């Protein structure tokens, strides 16, 4: 029942926001897409996806609506909100700053 560490959770949030930026998706499709785009490197438990989604929704970064899927089933689709877009931009910038700093440090040691 332990919560994902801040880093993991923060990463998951960013990933969800990024994927939803492309198109609204329901939970299952989001899970598949996540696996797909990370080439199965990021092993996100599908179970932890939902708490993350609901948390993001409570924050107001994503919003949800019930719609029919391509084979006419009712599913809850999540989409990015305007504040969500801003949050994504902020976190992306943060992430690239951090990762470049880290790779710089790591590169230094390699050299």
């Amino acid at each position, binding site marked *: *029942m332990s919560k994902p560490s801040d880093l993991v959770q923060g990463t998951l949030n960013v990933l969800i926001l990024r994927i939803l930026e492309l198109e609204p998706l329901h939970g*299952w499709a989001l899970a598949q897409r996540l696996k797909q785009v990370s080439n199965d490197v990021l092993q996100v438990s599908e179970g*932890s996806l939902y*708490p*993350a989604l609901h948390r993001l929704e*409570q924050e107001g970064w994503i919003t949800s609506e*019930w719609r029919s899927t391509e084979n006419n089933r009712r599913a809850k689709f999540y989409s990015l909100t305007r*504040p969500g877009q*801003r949050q994504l931009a902020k976190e992306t910038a943060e992430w690239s700053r951090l990762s470049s700093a880290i790779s710089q440090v790591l590169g230094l040691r390699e050299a």
Partner: protein
Amino acid sequence: MLNRRLLYALPIRLRSLFRRRVAEAELDEEIQFHFERQMETQIAKGLSPEEARYAAMRTLGNTSLVKEQVRDAWGWNTLSNLLQDIRYAIRVLVKSPGFATTAILTLALGIAASTAIFTIIDSVVLKPLSYPESGNLVALWERVAFLGPDATGPNPRHVDVWRKGATAFRDIAIVRQSTIGLARDIDHPNVVGMVVASPNLFDVLQVSPLHGRTFLPEDGVPGRGNVVVLTYKLWETVFQSDPNVVGRSVRLSDVPFQVVGVLPQSFHFPNRNALPTVRSKQAMTDVPEPSIFLPLAVDLSESSWTEYGNWIALGRLKAGITPEQAQSELQIVQEQVLEQIPTSERDTANNAIVPVVQPMQEAIVGQSRRILWFLMAAVGGLMLIACLNLANTQLARTYRRQREASVRGALGAPKWRLVWQALLENLLIAAVAGALGVVLAGIGLTLFRRIAPVDLPRLSEVRLSTEVLLFAGGLMLISAAIVSVLPVLYSLRSDLQASLQQGNSRALGSRQRRGVQAWLIGFQVFGCTALLLITGLFSTNLLQLLNRDMGFRTERVAFAQVNLTSQSYGQATNRVGFIDAVLENVREIPGVQAAGFISAAPLEGEAWINGVQRVDKREQKGVLMNLRWASPGYFEALSHELIAGRFLEERDRATRGVLITEGGARSLWRDETAVGGKIEVNGIQYTVVGVVGDARTASLKAPPPNMVYIHYGEQPPYQLFFMVRGNQPSEALLFDLRQAIWKHAPSAPIARAKTLDSQVRESLGMERIQTVVISAFGIAALLIAMLGIYGILNYSVATRKQEIGLRKAVGATPQCIYRLTMGEVGMPIVAGLMAGLIAMVAAGRVMSGMLDGVEGLDPLIVTTVLTVFVSCAIMAGFLPAWQAASLDPVDALRSE
């Protein structure tokens, strides 16, 4: 930006909080959808449905856990934790019903008493009067130097000058209150409260009628004033709410009046007790509510410039003008008034007649304000004692449950949550107690209204209101906070590990902790002593007043009041005839020992005060004395003491023989003999035929007034009081007395017939209710303090069982054990007693200003209170101490 986010976030948050079922259903559906899609994919990959199912389950993990985590994300944890904590607190309280009941009852009583007193204060003192913009309404008085320091009702001609000369007022009305017999058609007359007012009264009060009209200026023209306006209540009772009442007629005494209007239901005019014309300390009486209004149709230019104390003036200030500003303006206008006063009656001293402007509300609430705030302070003290007592018990419970707290702490419960739980328990107790308290206060107020004295103004307006409920709620929170402070502080400071290691209860009664508890007891004793001393003070005051030598005897005496009107009895000879005839009938009542007539009821204050001069020594300054018109037999009926000369006799009717009281005689004649001397009152000379003993006929609370008793034959009054002493209980006389009056005049309105004993009782109504309320507080405080002492000793003995056993085993005598246990609270109790005593000696001086019968704390009160308290304390402490002393050492040592 934040706002925009909230735009999305708020609805979803609210939904997950308040529409839980919908949110839950959607969550189920969402997970189910995921599950099914996963299964479908697996089946598409070629797995059997069964295998696909398991595979889907594996990828999703524990769905209940997932849902739980989602709920976590919704932020329900705080809420469900709160519910859990509340359930826990309820369980804990239910498991210790004794504690819970005592705690709730103690607090409920405290809250009930405070709420009740606050309700009265709120309705009587804090709420504005029920007139529009009542803040602008003022009462106007005059402080007349020769009448004493208290302001009195102003002279109507002076008011007329103010009205014309002062710019601070929109208008000023004058009002005189009395009672009158009212009848419809041929009914027996009913006595109702009557207000004679200048026609502008309702403009000043800004009250418009429910039916018909109020007064017009022409109603004030002499000879045209035969119209009346009724209050809603009178309209309801006498006219059965007849909507066509306007134009009907009523008989007041024997004169028909035409009803022109009905006032709205919310209209309430202060009665004579609430707005007296003479503002001295005097006993009040039961007066009927003002319910019929007559316009003043008299030409004021014929009335006196020097008569005071019969009228009330009510003014409305212009917006933005303060009463102080109005008063300074009136002081300038007053110059014109002083010029008008005939030189012979002019008092040349500075500030001989000073106008006084007072907010109307203050004028009405007046004296009651101080006593009410005092009661509030007393009940606050009681409440504090109750809270401290509860705090002490809770502290003991915290000690006892320390191990439980330690274990929970060790298992990871955050400290704030443990603290929160302690707080919650007290909040719960306080909430139940608060609800119960408000109900009790409601019941108490109903009772109070039944026994309350007649002279508490605005009593009819007392009711529970929103403010009162807020007050009770605040009190609830504060009491919970007070009770929680010590236990919370303790558990914040407590050391987890140490308490876990201690392991058994032996360490529970450590010296320091018991010290805190003992000093809490000390505080309670302090409050309790103070309250008990106040109780003593009030009770002694009441007893002193009741047992004072009144100078007359009340047993087996009854009296009846008849108000004659100028319309039917305008001629003095008619009134004399009425009195003569009724006296004759009264004396024929079987068993009557003495009967007489007097012009003012006993114990209703001084009235008809006039300067009295010695004829033979005109240079000597006159003495202010009360004039009374009386008949022979009056002094015998009241058993007045004859000091010199003789009582009034029939022959004094013609010879102008008068009686004076001893004090008056002394100030006029010093050591010389007064009998036979001549005095002059209002330009008429009288001969003193006797001197009667000083008697407190005006008020039990004031020194005996100086009196001149004149035979009624020459200037008979309109208000008549027939006094009769019989040889049977005075109640039995009442019927005969009424019959004797009606035998002469069947339509005579008898304002009241009552016994002199009840008159005495009622005149001390306020003192009695104060004493009852304060005594109740004192007794409650004593009980709570007893409970506190018993509780802490009992607890201490329980936790020190082994220690006591050990001491006994090594040879401690029972006396040692008594000293050991009871000594624990000895110091704090003594300190509390002393502190309470010192505080009350200081406060006693302030309070004796409120009490007329006592000077302050006397040794008798102090010793009584100390004896009562110490013996109660010993009783409370004895049981636990006795238990300790009779402990079997073997059992005690084994009890681990």
